[in-house]
C-alpha cells in the first residue's frame, strides 16, 4: 500500500491539492508578513478571514457577481484592519490581546450575520478552474499548476509581488525600517503611524481575500467558523518563513502538501490511526524548522508600540 503512494496519480493529486490548500494561507500570511515587518503582530487574522469569507459569499449570492464578492471581502477586511490599526497605532493596545479580541469579534459577527441574513447553508457557483492554454495540457504539470481557479493563481503571483515591494521599493524600505528601528525612521521623516496603518489595512484586505478564496473559490459554501483555525496557522507560517515572502510560500506549501499527503495516506488505507495522519503537517512543520535552524531575527520593534519622544 505504501508503494501506491508513489504512483503518478497520487503524486499529482498531492501536489494539486497542496497548491490549492496553500492558497488561503498565502493571502493571509503575506498580509501578516507586511504587518510584522512594520512591527505589528495581528492575531486577529482568523476573524478577518471569517468576515471576509462571509462578505464575499453573501454578496456573491445576492448579486450573482463573484468579483463584487471579492470586493466586499476586501472592504470588510480593510475596515477590520482600519479599526485594528487605530487600536494598535493610536491607542498602543497590546497587540496579542487585541488580536484575540478581533478574532472573537469576527468569529461571532460572521456567524450572526450568517444566521440572520441567510438562515441556512446555501451554495453559489464559485470561481471555476481556468485552464491556461497550452500549459494546462502538459501531462501532470498542467493539472497541478495550470488548471486552478483565478484566486489560486493570484495567491502565487502575490508572493513575488510582495517580495518586490518589501525589498526593492522605497515603500518596502520604509516598512522594514519602521519595523526595525522606528525611532530612526521617524527622525528621517518616515511617518511610523502612516506606514503601520498601511500595512495593517493591507493585511486586513489580504485576510479578507483569504476568506473569500475559501468561500467562493476553493469551496462554494459559507459555514460558521469555516476557517477552523486556519488564520492562526497563517500567523505561524510567517514565523516559519522568517518574515520573507518566499519563506512564507515554502511554509505554506510544506504544510499544505503534508496535509494532502495525509489525506492520501488515509485514502490508500495505510494502517495508521487517522489522528496520527492528521497530526503529520503540524509535526513536520516544527521538525523542518528544527533541522533548518534559522538565523533570521524577528523585526526588532515587533509588538512594540511606537511613541515619539517629545
Amino acid at each position, binding site marked *: 500500500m505504501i508503494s501506491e503512494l508513489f504512483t503518478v496519480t497520487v503524486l499529482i493529486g498531492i501536489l494539486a491539492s497542496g497548491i*490549492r*490548500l496553500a492558497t488561503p494561507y498565502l493571502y493571509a500570511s503575506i498580509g501578516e508578513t507586511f504587518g510584522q515587518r512594520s512591527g505589528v503582530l495581528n492575531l486577529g487574522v482568523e476573524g478577518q478571514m471569517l468576515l471576509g469569507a462571509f462578505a464575499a459569499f453573501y454578496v456573491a449570492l445576492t448579486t450573482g457577481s463573484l468579483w463584487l464578492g471579492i470586493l466586499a471581502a476586501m472592504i470588510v477586511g480593510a475596515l477590520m484592519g482600519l479599526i485594528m490599526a487605530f487600536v494598535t497605532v*493610536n491607542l498602543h493596545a497590546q497587540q496579542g490581546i487585541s488580536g484575540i479580541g478581533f478574532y472573537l469579534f469576527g468569529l461571532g459577527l460572521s456567524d450572526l450575520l450568517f444566521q440572520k441574513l441567510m438562515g441556512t447553508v446555501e*451554495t453559489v457557483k464559485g470561481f471555476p478552474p481556468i485552464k491556461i492554454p497550452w500549459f494546462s495540457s502538459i501531462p501532470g504539470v498542467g493539472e497541478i499548476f495550470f488548471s486552478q481557479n483565478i484566486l489560486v493563481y493570484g495567491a502565487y503571483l502575490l508572493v513575488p509581488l510582495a517580495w518586490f515591494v518589501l525589498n526593492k521599493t522605497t515603500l518596502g524600505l520604509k516598512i522594514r525600517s519602521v519595523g526595525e528601528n522606528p525611532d530612526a525612521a521617524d527622525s528621517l521623516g518616515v511617518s511610523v503611524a502612516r506606514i503601520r496603518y498601511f500595512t495593517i489595512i493591507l493585511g486586513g484586505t489580504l485576510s479578507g481575500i483569504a476568506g473569500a478564496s475559501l468561500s467562493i473559490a476553493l*469551496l462554494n459554501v459559507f*459555514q*460558521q467558523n469555516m476557517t477552523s483555525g*486556519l488564520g492562526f496557522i497563517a500567523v505561524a507560517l510567517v514565523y516559519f518563513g522568517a518574515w520573507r515572502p518566499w519563506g512564507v510560500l515554502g511554509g505554506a506549501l510544506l504544510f499544505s502538501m503534508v496535509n494532502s499527503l495525509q489525506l492520501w495516506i488515509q*485514502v490508500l488505507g495505510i494502517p495508521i490511526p487517522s489522528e496520527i495522519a492528521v497530526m503529520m503537517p503540524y509535526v513536520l512543520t516544527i521538525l523542518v524548522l528544527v533541522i533548518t535552524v534559522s538565523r533570521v531575527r524577528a523585526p526588532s520593534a515587533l509588538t512594540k508600540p511606537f511613541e515619539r519622544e517629545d
Partner: protein
Amino acid sequence: MKKFIWLLTLIVALSMILTACGAAAPAATEAPVVTEAPVSATEAPVATEPPAAPAEPFRVAVIMPSAINDLAFSQSMFDALTRIQEEMGGTDAFEFVYSDGMFNVDDAAAAIRDYATEGYDLVIAHGSQYGSSLQEIAPDFPETSFAWGTTAETFGVPNIFAYEAASQEGGYVNGVLAATLSTSKVIGIVGPIEVGDAKLYVDGFKAGVATTDPAVKVNVNYIGSFSDVALASEAATTHIAAGADALTGTAQMVVGAIGKAEEANALWFGTQSNQTSLAPTIVVASQVYHWEVALREIITLINSGTLGGQSFKANLANGGEVVEFNPDYALSADATALAESTIQGIIDGTITITLP
C-alpha cells in the same frame, strides 16, 4: 490629522456594526424559524385553538453543540422541535428555547442546570458528550424530565430519557445504493473523528457496500475536525482523484465536500439532514433523522407522569429515520426497487447489519 483618524475610525466602526445588524434585523422577520418561538409567543391567535389543548404550554429547552442551521446534527433536532410545535398547534401548546454552539461541556452543564431551575418540562441535551453532566444534574431536579442522545444509556436515573439513531441503517441503504450506482467501483467517505454517530453511519455504509458488491473499494478519510470545511473538500477531491465516483460523509463540515462531488459529477449520499439543496444534480438520497418520533413518545410519557428511565431508538422501522430521495435525481426503477426492498428488509428484520 490625529483627530481626523479618530473620527473616521469611530464612524467606520460604528457604521459597520450598525449596517451589519441593521441588515440583520429585517431579515430576521423574514426568516421566522429562528426567532419564532420567543417573539411571536404572545401574538399567536388563540381563537382556533382546540378545547383539548392544555392551559399551560409544554415547555422544552434544548442544548445543541453546533448551530441550528448546520444542515446536520443540530439542525435535525431543531427541525424536529419545529415540526412538533406545528403538530401540537403552535407556541400556545408547545414552546421551546435553545442554546446553540454549546460545544463546551462545562457551559452546556451550566445551561442544563439553569433550564432545569427555570422549570422547563423537558430539557434535551442533544449530544453524547453531555451525558456525564446530565447524570450529575438530573437527580437534583426530580420533577424535571431530561433527555439526551445519541445513546441508549439512562444511567438508571428515573428522570432521564435516552434516544439514539440507528444511523447504520440509513448508512446501509446508502451503501447498497452507492455500490449499485458506482461504475468505477470506488467509493469515498469523509468523516470527522472515528466515534459515535459518525462511526456508526460509516460502518453501516461499508456493510451495505460489502454485501452488495464485495469488489467495490471503500476509502475512508477522517479529517480530525467537525469544522474544517476546506480540508473536507480536499478530502473529497482526493477520493475523486483516487477514482471514486460516489461519495458520502457525515457531520457539518461535509458541506465542503458536496461541492467537490458536484464539480466532478460524482454522486453524493447524505445523512443527518436532507442535503439535496446543496447539490440538486448529484445528491441521490439523504438519511434524515426525525427525532420527533422519539420526542412524541417522550412528551406523552411525561404528560402521563413518567419522567424518564426509557430509551428510544430512531430507526427505519419506526420512522425516526427516513431515507429521503432527491426527486430531481433520476434514479432507475431497478435501483429504486433495490433501495425500497433494502429498507423493507431492514424494517422486517430479514436484513441484519453486522458492524465491526
